[in-house]
C-alpha cells in the first residue's frame, strides 16, 4: 500500500511516501494507524501528538473506513488553503 504525506506531517516523518505491505488483519483506517504506531515510533509520535486527516484515493474518510480496496492513502494536517 502506498502512503503519502503532506506539509508538516511530511516534514516530521521525513519522507514524501512509504510503501508498506499491511498484514491481513489491517482492515480499517484505525487498524492501519495502530499497525503504523507499532511499526515505527515516528508514526506513534505523529498520531499521538498532531492533528491529522486521512484521505483514501483522494477522499477524506473516517477512522472506521475499510481500506481493502484503497490504492493510495494520504495522511496530512488540517488544510489551510484559500
Amino acid at each position, binding site marked *: 500500500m502506498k502512503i503519502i504525506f503532506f506539509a*508538516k506531517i511530511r516534514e516530521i516523518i521525513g519522507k514524501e511516501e512509504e510503501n508498506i505491505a499491511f498484514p491481513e488483519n489491517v482492515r480499517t483506517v484505525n487498524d492501519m494507524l495502530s499497525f503504523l504506531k507499532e511499526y515505527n515510533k515516528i508514526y506513534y509520535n505523529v498520531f499521538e501528538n498532531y492533528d491529522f486527516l486521512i484521505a483514501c484515493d483522494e477522499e477524506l474518510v473516517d477512522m472506521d473506513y475499510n481500506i481493502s480496496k484503497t490504492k493510495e492513502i494520504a495522511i496530512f494536517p488540517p*488544510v*489551510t*488553503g*484559500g
Partner: protein
Amino acid sequence: MIDIRIQSSDFNFSKEIKNFQNNKINGAVVCFLGSVRDLKSEEGLEKLEIEYYPKMAEKVLEETARKAFKEWNLSQCLIIHRFGKLDVNEPIVLIITQTKHRKDAFRANEFIIDFLKINAPFWKKEHTNKKSYWVEQNKKDLDIKI
C-alpha cells in the same frame, strides 16, 4: 460552465473578469479574491509557500464548484488556486460566481470559499526572516455551517 485551475503562476484578475464580461453577463457577478497577508509583521513575512495534493485538490475544487453550480443555479463559475512561493499581497485564490439573482451569486461564492477552506488539500507555510511556520487551521472556519 465550470473552470478550475490550480497553478503556480500569478493570475490576471483583470483578464479573468474581462473574459466573464465578454461572455454576455446576464445578471450578477460576485468575486472573491484572497491574497497573502503578513500576519507575522514583527518578524517580516518574506514568502508564503503553498503545498498541495494535486489529484485530490483538483477533485475537491471540481466537486465544490459542481455543488454550488447546482444549488444556486450558476451560469458560470471560476476557481483559481495557486501553489508555490508567493510574496506578501500576491493573490492566492480567485472565485467568480455568476447567476441571474445576486443573492445566489453571493451565497454560492461564500459557500465555495468556506468549503474549500476546510476540505481542499492545500497547506500554507510562512517564511519570515527568522524562521518558518506551518499555518494552523483557523478554528473559526470549522464552525461555519456549510
